[in-house]
């Protein structure tokens, strides 16, 4: 998967036609062959742009940045990124007419060790669902795109309750409450987060196991039915916590019980919690 040439051409053309003010893509980070995001405002920097299977970070996160606000933006999105973009559009966070979206039919990206990322192995929507220009061959036809339950979720669900509780206690204990997960998530765009309070409340930013539990549970429930599994949060976590577990658990419950589409796949679809069906499971209620 290498679309470096095409993306450079498109970006140069967009700048030449004056269609965009800033282009958000990837560049090589300068010390190894991994890539970092590049926000380009000068057409001269266009040759720096690259796109390979190391283009990992979800660039939709930059649409909440001051560098792109009220500007016309060119943007590269993979399958998962495009779903989060779709949600941001639905939730009126960005204007479609200000965006020029280059969609990628993604074949999966690799992590630092060169292994294909787990979310890419289990990916159900590799093609960009929103784009002005689509690069690559759409795979929806050739692949059977079925939802696959995350391997970690399946393993943990079979564990006895006490072991699972002990495992998660370790997770929450190692959280250092830096909130990097929240800041790197494209869908956490609230100007003021409900877990940062100015007045005295139950929890207020101290770093204890119970406050980490409180913050991460609240965070994951606010993203339930919206998380697109791009794993920006996990990449940002300085303690390497398996944060995807919480999201994948919610996703699997929603998918299996409500027969909803994955978040952000359908335009104008606001996610599982904004609608209901009379056939929703009722057996857990007395």
């Amino acid at each position, binding site marked *: 998967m290498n679309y470096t040439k095409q993306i450079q051409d498109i970006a140069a053309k967009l700048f030449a036609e004056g269609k965009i003010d800033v282009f958000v893509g990837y560049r090589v980070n300068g010390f190894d062959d991994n890539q970092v995001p590049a926000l380009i405002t000068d057409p001269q920097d266009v040759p720096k742009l690259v796109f390979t299977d190391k283009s990992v970070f979800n660039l939709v996160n930059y649409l909440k940045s001051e560098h792109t606000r009220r500007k016309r933006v060119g943007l590269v999105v993979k399958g998962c990124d495009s779903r989060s973009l779709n949600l941001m559009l639905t939730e009126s966070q960005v204007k479609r007419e200000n965006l020029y979206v280059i969609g990628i039919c993604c074949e999966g990206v690799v992590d630092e060790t060169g292994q294909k990322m787990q979310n890419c192995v289990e990916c159900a929507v590799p093609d960009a669902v929103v784009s002005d220009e689509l690069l690559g061959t759409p795979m929806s036809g050739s692949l059977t795109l079925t939802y696959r339950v995350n391997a970690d979720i399946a393993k943990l669900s079979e564990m006895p309750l006490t072991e699972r509780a002990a495992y998660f206690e370790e997770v929450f204990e190692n959280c250092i409450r830096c909130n990097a997960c929240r800041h790197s998530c494209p869908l956490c765009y609230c100007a003021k987060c409900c877990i940062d309070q100015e007045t*005295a409340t139950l929890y207020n930013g101290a770093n204890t196991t119970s406050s980490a539990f409180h913050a991460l549970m609240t965070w994951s429930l606010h993203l339930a039915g919206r998380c697109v599994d791009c794993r920006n949060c996990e990449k940002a976590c300085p303690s390497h916590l*398996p944060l995807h577990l919480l999201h994948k658990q919610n996703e699997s419950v929603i998918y299996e019980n409500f027969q909803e589409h994955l978040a952000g796949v359908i335009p104008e679809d606001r996610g599982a919690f904004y609608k209901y069906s009379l056939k929703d499971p009722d057996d857990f209620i007395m």
Partner: protein
Amino acid sequence: MSFSTFVTDKPGLQKFYEAVLASHETYAPAEKFGKFDFKLVSRISECDPESPIAKTQSIKPLFFPRSAKVMKYVATSAGTDVSEVDEDPLAVKRIIIGAKHCDARSLQVLDKVYNWDYIDTDYQKRRENTVIISTRCDKADTHCFCTSLDYDVENLDAMDVLVVNGAEGKIYLRARTEKGETFLKENFSQQLAVGSEQSEVGSRHSAEEEMKKQYAAFAESFRLKMNYKEVNERLSKIFDTPEFEKVSANCVSCNTCAFICPTCHCFKISDEKVKDTGLRYKSYDSCNNGYFTLMAGGHNPRPAKYRRWRQRAMHKFVYYKERFGENLCVGCGKCTIACPVNISIFEVVNQVASAGIQE
């Protein structure tokens, strides 16, 4: 005053660590989710004193905890009762093993600010009661640049005992302070020493040479090198350069850099309460936070991301130096590794400084 050097080998060092772990309250890097953090351990199998620097959190939380209780309060009809919190668990006599040079240096830098206009007694107590056993790195990591900065990596006063891997599997244990000297004398049993050089002053010269050689090899392994004085001088003159906007464009303001930095010491005060009973905490905060400088009236003197980044870079390389004569950055590279978009403070200051020349 001269301090003694002890010579041992790998199994000897292991045995020494085991003895320390058994007899003292010891903090060492313990692995969780592929990341090492300094935790209270009781067995050598639970920890790895030679953990890779890129994956290890700093020892700052052992002196400046991520969250410390300041006080308790109870609101009653007669008024508010304020009471002291329980005893500080970090102020007991303890040993830290597996610290690195940059960790030791960070404490030296932090000492300045904690002994400044207000003496932080909690911090002082924690410092006094701790013996730090520091391991010299054999090789620099991708993002390390400690040798490029204004301190002598070889001779730091903050570590009490220095462990150096010498040639032929020899390991030198060298006391660097009186605290370290007494600790080593009390705890290092002569049976662990190897070779004819029975750990006494006679062997000191050969040990010193060996350590020098090892240091030269270590200093050569650095990928990042800079002229610190020049960078420092230029930075102090170019506050208004637009370059800061360029270097900070990538930043997602996630605060990770400040939370894992061994020298960042900004904190916030927050109250947590249930009904009428509350606890006041002092927890980490970061200048990269949008609301870090937000005032009660709604005014924010640093609303833009580049201003916050400028503050971070300048505080590390200019302001702290002006005030305390030390550089706040210790060159450990931990922020670059933790950063989700790999912004390197090394690149930032160099890029800004070199832009200063062009102008």
